[in-house]
Every structure is written in C-alpha cells, then in structure tokens.
C-alpha cells in the first residue's frame, strides 16, 4: 500500500463501519488526491476527524438531518431510541448507586430533611422509570416475538443472547450479593424506610462497582475476592445487557404508531431523570449531614451526578432526534 493510501486508510478509521462501507472507497480516492496536492494539512486532518465524529453521532441517532422516507426515518428513530436506552442505563447505573446508599442509610438511621426529601423523590422517579421501561419493552418484545415466529432470525440471535446473558448475571449476582448485605439481610422490608429492603439491597449490589474504593487500592485489597470479582464483572454484565437491548431495538422493525409511542415514553423518561437528578443535586448541595454518616455525599456522588447530567443531556438529544 502506498504512503498516501495508507494515510487515507488511517484517516478513514475515524468513520463508522456503515459509513465506510457506503462512502469509504470514493472518500479514500478524494483523500489520496487531496494528499497529493497538499501533503501536510492539519486543517484537513481536523476536518476529517470532525466529519468522522459527526458520522458516528449520526449513526447513533444523536444528530443529523431527518431522512426522507418512512423506512429510513424509522431506522433513524430506532437508532435514537437505542442511544437513549444506553444513556438511561448509564444514568441508572450511577443513580442506582446514589439511591441505594440513601435507601439503605434510611434503614439504619433517620435521615435529615434534605436526604429524606431526596430519597422519597428519587424513589418515586425510580418507580416511574421502571414503569416506563416496562411499557417501552412490551411493544419491542411483541415485535421480536412476531419476527421470531416467522422463522429463525440470525440478526437477533447475537443481541438476544447477549441481553439474556447480561440479565441472568446481573440478576443472579445482584440477588447473591444483595442477600449477603448486613444492612438488610435480604429481608423484604428490613427496617423503616420508603423502599423494600430487598429492592434497596439489589440496587446496591448491582451497582457495587460505582465506588470510590477504586481510588484506594489498599482498602480495596481487603475486600473478599468474590466481591472484588463481582465489582469487576457486574459492569461488563450490565454493558452486555444494555448493548444487547440496544442492538435488538435497532434491528427490530417497529410501526410508526409504536415509534410515536416509544418517543413519548422517551420524553417522559427524560423528564423523570431530570427530576431524579434535581433531587440528587439538592441533596449534594445541602451538605448538612454529618461527615462519615450514611447521608453524607462523597466525591463519588459528585462524580456520579456529573455523569448522570451528561447521560441525561445526551439522552435528551436522542429523544429529540427520535421525535423528528
């Protein structure tokens, strides 16, 4: 491979696979001609990198022009909804860690006003998000079942296997480590508090990897091996679950009516996440809880809030694109 062709191939890697399959050959020829004319051009490199990032965001349904035609518009809306699902999962990963800290803390001691209000609002938001997720999953599951009923579908096999494997690992691991948690002992409603003990313990266990202990290796080394393994494994399982679910949404044909329904749910989910984020932010800003207690917000909570805000902003953009 010649020098310019190699450089063009390197630049082309900034673009997603689908874009490369469609435009790769002709874009490479343009780059080679441009490289011959202007061998050194940082502006061209920056332009190609920016174009690649935009193409990736467009592929993920996060930006771009509303395409012509029902089929292409539906494909783009599904990509946007899949991205929103990923953003919601990231939000819930960090939000679940924050929420379970507060709910389990409530089972140990009475919270101050800020923590109590935050816990109640977050619990309500979690419940609404669970209902929305169920409502969103039902039409997709129905469409998948109808597609499978027509015959074996290789396109859905991999994502379905990934989704189910992630679900089994998260559920089994969450139950196992949640039941071992001394705060709840796995009792359905161990002590006074707005959330059943088993639910709080499951949320705590499934988000155990969201921990400031990663910044303290000496303290982390004292953890039991099984717990350390779970802390490393659970994010991978969650990632598999969400990646599988997102791929299923992208590959399953949904009618325009179902897409409109899903888009409305997407907006509702964003509003609910904003309420959750507001409650978390108010709790962190309050700072009246005694340091070291279960209701004192730590650095991990501040970092988690920042990640949740980013996930919500991206998810909101995805919901807007899905509605176009």
């Amino acid at each position, binding site marked *: 491979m010649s020098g310019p062709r190699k450089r063009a191939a390197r630049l082309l890697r900034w673009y997603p696979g689908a874009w490369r399959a469609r*435009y790769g050959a*002709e*874009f490479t*020829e*343009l780059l080679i001609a441009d490289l011959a004319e202007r061998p050194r051009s940082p502006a061209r490199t920056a*332009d190609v990198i920016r174009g*690649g990032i*935009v193409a990736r965001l467009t592929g993920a349904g996060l930006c771009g022009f509303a*395409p012509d035609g029902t089929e*292409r518009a539906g494909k783009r809306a599904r990509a946007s909804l899949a991205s929103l699902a990923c953003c919601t999962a990231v939000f819930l990963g960090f939000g679940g860690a924050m929420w379970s800290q507060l709910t389990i803390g409530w089972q140990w001691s009475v919270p101050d006003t800020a923590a109590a209000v935050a816990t109640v609002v977050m619990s309500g938001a979690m419940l609404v998000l669970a209902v929305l997720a169920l409502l969103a999953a039902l039409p997709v599951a129905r469409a998948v079942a109808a597609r499978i009923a027509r015959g074996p579908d290789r396109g859905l096999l991999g994502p379905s296997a990934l989704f189910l494997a992630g679900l089994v690992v998260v559920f089994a691991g969450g139950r196992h480590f949640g039941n071992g948690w001394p705060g709840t002992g796995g009792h359905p409603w161990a002590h006074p508090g707005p959330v059943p003990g088993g639910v709080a313990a499951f949320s705590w266990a499934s988000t155990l990897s969201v921990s400031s202990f990663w910044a303290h290796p000496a303290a982390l080394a004292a953890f039991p091996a099984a717990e350390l393994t779970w802390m490393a494994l659970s994010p991978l399982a969650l990632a598999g679950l969400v990646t599988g679910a997102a791929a299923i949404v992208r590959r399953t044909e949904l009618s325009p009516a179902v897409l409109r329904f899903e888009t409305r749910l997407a907006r509702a989910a964003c509003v609910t996440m904003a309420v959750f984020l507001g409650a978390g932010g108010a709790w962190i800003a309050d700072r009246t809880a005694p340091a070291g207690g279960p209701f004192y917000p730590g650095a991990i909570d501040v970092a988690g809030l920042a990640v949740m805000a980013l996930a919500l902003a991206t998810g909101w953009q995805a919901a807007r694109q899905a509605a176009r």
Partner: protein
Amino acid sequence: MPTDKALDGFGRYAGPATLILASLAGGAKHGYALTKDIESFAGVRVAPGTLYEALARLQAQGLIEPVESHDRRRPYRLTAVGATTLQAQLDAQRRVADVGLRRLAQGWGPA
C-alpha cells in the same frame, strides 16, 4: 417537499450544499472534481470531511444521486428536486444581492 425551505435544516452546511448543487448543475462530478470546480468558481476549497458530510445529507434529502460507475471515484448528479431547490436558493440569494447592491449604489458613502 417545499423546495424554498429544503436547505433550511442544513445549518452550517447550507453554504457547502449550495456550492455542491451549483457545481453539479454543470454536470455529474466525483468528489475531487467537485472540490476543484467549486474552488475555480467560488474561490473556496471545501475540505474532504465537510464535502462528504454535505453529500450524504444532500443524498438523504433526494437532492442529488450517485451515478453508476466502475471507477472507485463515484460521481454524483443533480436530481429534479435538487435543481428546483437550487433555483429557489439562488433566487433568494439574488434578491438579497440585488437589494444590497442597489442600496450601496444609492446611498452609502463615508460620513
């Protein structure tokens, strides 16, 4: 499609989009030929990433279409909708240019 609004959603790509459509009005061209042609009549060099971003959008809107080619450099041509859109866009630009030129000729001068 309301052709006078067809380029509204292009935002920062409205400029490159108009240049590409104007170039293709003279016949089908591949990427590098488009770059050189635009450079010759507008004095602007459209960078490769920007060019293909605009091409993809124009194609998605049905304003241009690829031409069958055995060459790796695939040419594009203007569609009928693209021609009407370009006409509307250039008419709007001409109205602005005419007003600006007329006012410059009539009244402007150093105070």
